[in-house]
């Protein structure tokens, strides 16, 4: 359902993505691993247009996203963003709106759905992430784990076909990481299509269907978690895994 074809991106003379191609099927949990600076967050952010790219093509379902500057990019982005949600490392909840208002904001104002219908759905989503009792507080009073669960509910309120997770647990301590990982596992079981950039090998092993290892702007190795972790084929993968184990 999501296809990336030869994505190239550079910052000045630096090639950040050197022609990356990959594919994510419906219902798949795709994990992007790799050392810092390998380009995994950048790759994720090209999918919903938060990063530009110079050449290549991204397909989300039947929508084609051309490179920056090409005709039709804006309208494609509008459609993609309404279909593909995103969860950020730093949550980025709207601090001036309550928890339930955060969840309702986009369905009401972007999709123009009826307020009452959205409120019912929003309450259900908050219950699902275990925060029904926090609906009327402001995000500032929540813990990091709670904020990230609200952010996931906010994304789910748009009924996304796929969700992009950009290091969703990197700003959290282990206990809060567990809360968030539990919610994500729950989504995976329900068949939610997800692309997850993470450093959490545990999550990749337990929940991931496919793993891509990005290094220096290219995919060094792809496979199932079992293949990648038990039987790495490239030096890059082996070095990455052994660094993680040392740390």
């Amino acid at each position, binding site marked *: 359902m999501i296809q990336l074809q030869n994505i190239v991106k550079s910052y000045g003379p630096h090639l950040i993505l050197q022609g990356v191609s990959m594919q994510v099927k419906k219902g798949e949990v795709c994990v992007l691993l790799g050392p810092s600076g390998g380009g995994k967050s950048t790759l994720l952010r090209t999918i*919903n*247009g*938060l990063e530009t790219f110079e050449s290549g093509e991204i397909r989300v379902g039947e929508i084609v996203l051309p490179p920056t500057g090409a005709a039709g990019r804006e309208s494609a982005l*509008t459609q993609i*963003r*309404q279909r593909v*949600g*995103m969860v*950020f490392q*730093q949550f*980025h*909840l*709207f*601090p*001036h709106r309550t928890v339930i208002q955060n969840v309702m*904001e*986009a369905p009401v*104002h*972007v*999709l123009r759905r009826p307020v009452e219908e959205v409120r019912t759905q929003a309450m259900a989503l908050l219950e699902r992430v275990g925060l029904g009792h926090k609906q009327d*507080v*402001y995000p*500032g*009073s929540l813990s990091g784990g709670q904020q990230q669960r609200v952010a996931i509910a*906010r*994304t789910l309120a*748009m009924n996304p076909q796929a969700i*992009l997770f950009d290091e969703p647990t990197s700003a959290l301590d282990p206990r809060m990481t567990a809360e968030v990982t539990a919610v994500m596992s729950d989504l995976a079981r329900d068949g939610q299509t997800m692309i997850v950039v993470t450093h959490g090998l545990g999550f990749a092993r337990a929940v991931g269907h496919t793993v891509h290892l990005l290094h220096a702007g290219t995919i060094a190795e792809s496979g199932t978690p079992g293949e990648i972790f038990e039987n790495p084929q490239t030096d890059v993968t082996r070095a990455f895994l052994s660094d993680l184990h040392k740390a």
Partner: protein
Amino acid sequence: MGFLKRCHRRRVPWNAAVSLRTDFSVLLVCCGLLFSAGHVDAGDGLAKVKQRGTLIWGADQEGGGPFIYPADDDPNRLVGFEVELAQLLAESLGVRSQFQQGQWDKLPDLMSRGDLDIVLNGYEWTPVRAERYGVSIPYYIYELQLLGRKDDPTFNSWNDLFEPPGGRKKRIAVLGGAAAEDYLRKHLGDRVEIALFEGVSDAMRGAELNVDGIDGNLQDLPIWTFYEPGFPKLKAIGDPVGRGFYVVLTRKDDTELLQAINTAIFEALQDGRLRRILSRYRIWNETQSLRGLETNLQGSFIGLPHARSEEPGETEEVDEETYVPVRGFGVIWQRGGLLAKAAGMTVLLAVTAMPLAILIGLLMALLRLYGPALARSLATIYVELIRGTPLVLQLYVLFFLLPEIGLKVNAFWAAVAGLALNYSAYEAEIYRAGLQAIPRGQMEAAQALGFSQWLALRRIIVPQATRLVIPPVTNDFIALFKDTAVCSVITVVELSKEYYIQARSTGAIVELGLLTALLYLAMSYPLSLLAGRLEKRLMTERRT
């Protein structure tokens, strides 16, 4: 020159006026107890002038021709009949004349401070001035000339003021507090509307351009004579009226200096030198042959008892010389109402202008940060241009330039527009800082949820920035209340202007000053409280 402030209905003893200035700090502590304090000067003005070798005379160049104005060919050189008269007086005393610039209505204060020896700048003889200062015999007898537009068929005589054709009252421009204003109020009451201006040529320009619905101008005759070529669309209506006298002011106790000035004027009158000077500025007329030379023992001109009986409609003795002494805090009851009313205008100006300023400022900030390249440059130019030029200039341009291109703006809306434009530049910069302080992730999160940039700004970014800018915007709002004072240049009378008018006419500088300060505080302090509460309420979002 007829800038004469409305002073001749009330009088404050000279002692009081002096003590108000010299013992100001003491007065703040025990106000009203020191009205009998002594004089500051020993009355040795003439000796000082001779010892110094210069006669320091005060005038305001802003008043313009024919009194004193920069020469056409060399703006650094001053010309005018008063400049030449000052030279003549100094020569008679055997000294050189030295000009000292001062704001017109502050000149007597400067003289009391000892900065000037004499004031020579179109000051009209009034009983109050004669009471407070030494007043010389007249060096010019002026009259008032009614002016209207040549293309106005409904305005051809004084009678058109008394019984306006079509029943619509005429709107007449005059200098605020000038003799012309008093003349109109006394003779026409509320049968005319009066628009107050601060500069003589402003009032004529206002009449010529029909600014703010102004039909005419009651102007000092010498000024009209002098400026007539510059206002081809204006015509003189009826004969001159309201005769009065321009006199030289000295400190009250400088009787020797006053006598010497009188002698000099008298001799110049006798041998024709005064006539030559006046003729040079085309302001000599037969009226000047009528001289009022009566003085009291100190040499102070005592006025002509019948000089005013020639005014039309004048049948009985002039009653304006009846004094109602105003002392202490009683003046607050008498004039407080006027100040409170003027404070209402201040509030109205500020609360109308500020929301506009915030809206325009927000728009400019958004254009500078998110607009297309051209809009960014234009918004930047707007902010720099508005922020880099004085408010008073902007008001002046709005009020006098727009009618030139056919846009009629009345004084109130010109004032609101000027204030709103001026403050919008500052609000734009405040909002720009506020918008930039919102983390980038907020916009990204909104876009990732499908928000367009405009929707994200409206729903997510601007509301958060607004919370951040409450303190600086409140600060500006309070400042705006005080900046409304500038609007008096385009005839809007607000609190400060009313204070100056009332304080000068009563001499109750401290009492009315305290009241004015209280009124300003009564506007700004509740605003601070309100902003504080609003801020607190919005900031609770971060905690609860």
